């Protein structure tokens, strides 16, 4: 194949792919499941919405921005938890967070009875919903403990596709997953770039410098330094395949968050007074992996 033919083939593949990023939360969830089909649990007509938003003159969404889609993955029962980024930036309120935490807890309870359900979480979240501050924080903690309890029994697979990315308490939830799949467009970080610039000044971080931001917290970098596992294109089929491979890989005996000594040693070697060098970080953090 000549270079021209190769680039033509690559362009063709890009144009004919089914973009995951362009889909809404329900479409994304369906694309993960066998046959693109599932049953919505606690859907909009159940009207389990946030009781706090209307009090603050904010329009609610009837499913509070979290879609639970039950179906199968490789023939095994599965639940895809999909966060709708268009509603309040995918933020976690009391109800949206409780839907995630409670479904993970239910999967764990079912597992002890010998019934296995594969959990997949499609993260797209700015973190806690500020209008529901403490309740949101509390429920994010419940999500964390549910993931930690569950991942010893069955892999918990997380996906961050973009374009919101995954920040705040939900970035911790993503990092607790057995396997984390990211696209190049996705970002993962505790504080978003705008927040860092606002709090520490533009000398610390210029949040408008997109290439800098993605080189620090983008999917490619997160995979390169070992904080995420799989880098995928924005392609629904490729993402669904990566999810299936992750379940086939099984339970992770030493998850990232359990490797405390290793990460503390890496942090101790790191000099925060020097500006971050993403490429040097790759060499330093991949060591020992």
């Amino acid at each position, binding site marked *: 194949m000549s270079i021209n033919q190769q680039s033509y083939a690559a362009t063709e593949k890009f144009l004919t792919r089914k973009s995951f990023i362009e889909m809404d939360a329900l479409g994304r969830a369906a694309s993960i499941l066998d046959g693109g089909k599932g049953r919505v649990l606690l859907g*909009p*007509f159940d009207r389990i919405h946030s009781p706090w938003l*209307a009090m603050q*003159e904010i*329009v*609610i*969404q*009837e499913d509070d921005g979290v879609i639970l889609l039950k179906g199968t993955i490789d023939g095994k029962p599965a639940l895809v938890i999909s966060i709708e980024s268009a509603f309040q930036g995918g933020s976690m309120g009391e109800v949206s967070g409780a839907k995630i935490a409670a479904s993970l807890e239910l999967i764990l309870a079912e597992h002890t009875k010998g019934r296995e359900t594969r959990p997949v979480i499609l993260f797209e979240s700015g973190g806690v919903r500020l209008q529901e501050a403490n309740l949101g924080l509390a429920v994010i903690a419940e999500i964390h403990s549910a993931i930690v309890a569950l991942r010893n029994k069955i892999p918990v697979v997380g996906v961050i596709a973009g374009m919101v990315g995954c920040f705040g308490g939900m970035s911790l939830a993503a990092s607790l997953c057995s396997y984390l799949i990211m696209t190049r467009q996705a970002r993962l970080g505790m504080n978003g770039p705008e927040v860092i610039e606002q709090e520490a000044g533009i000398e610390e971080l210029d949040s408008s410098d997109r290439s800098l931001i993605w080189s620090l917290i983008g999917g490619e970098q997160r995979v390169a330094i070992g904080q995420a596992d799989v880098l995928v294109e924005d392609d629904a089929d490729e993402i669904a395949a990566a999810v299936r491979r992750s379940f086939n890989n099984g339970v992770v005996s030493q998850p990232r968050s359990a490797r405390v000594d290793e990460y503390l040693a890496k942090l101790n070697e790191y000099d925060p007074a020097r500006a971050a060098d993403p490429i040097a970080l790759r060499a330093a953090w991949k060591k020992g992996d």
Partner: protein
Amino acid sequence: MEILKYDYPSAKSPISKKVHVGVVGSGDLEILLEPSKDGLAHVVISTSVNGYGQVWQDVIDRFFSKFDGAAAIEINDFGATPGMVALRLQQAVEKLK
């Protein structure tokens, strides 16, 4: 935020299912359309933009000039334009079929 309510007592044809379209995102809205309990059409709108009651009335009137389903419609709006609202309503009717 403003809550608007409209009734369309002449819309009486029975509908058989529940339909959900859209998302409460910037410039968009969600619509929940289901059979109404009293067999007449009712619309309840929560909108993030105040003071557009007359525009809403016009858009919904126009919709019910062609649609006669006895539907209970809930709209949660996050600043959709009238054109967007009309398209989402049309989409909901498409999904009814």
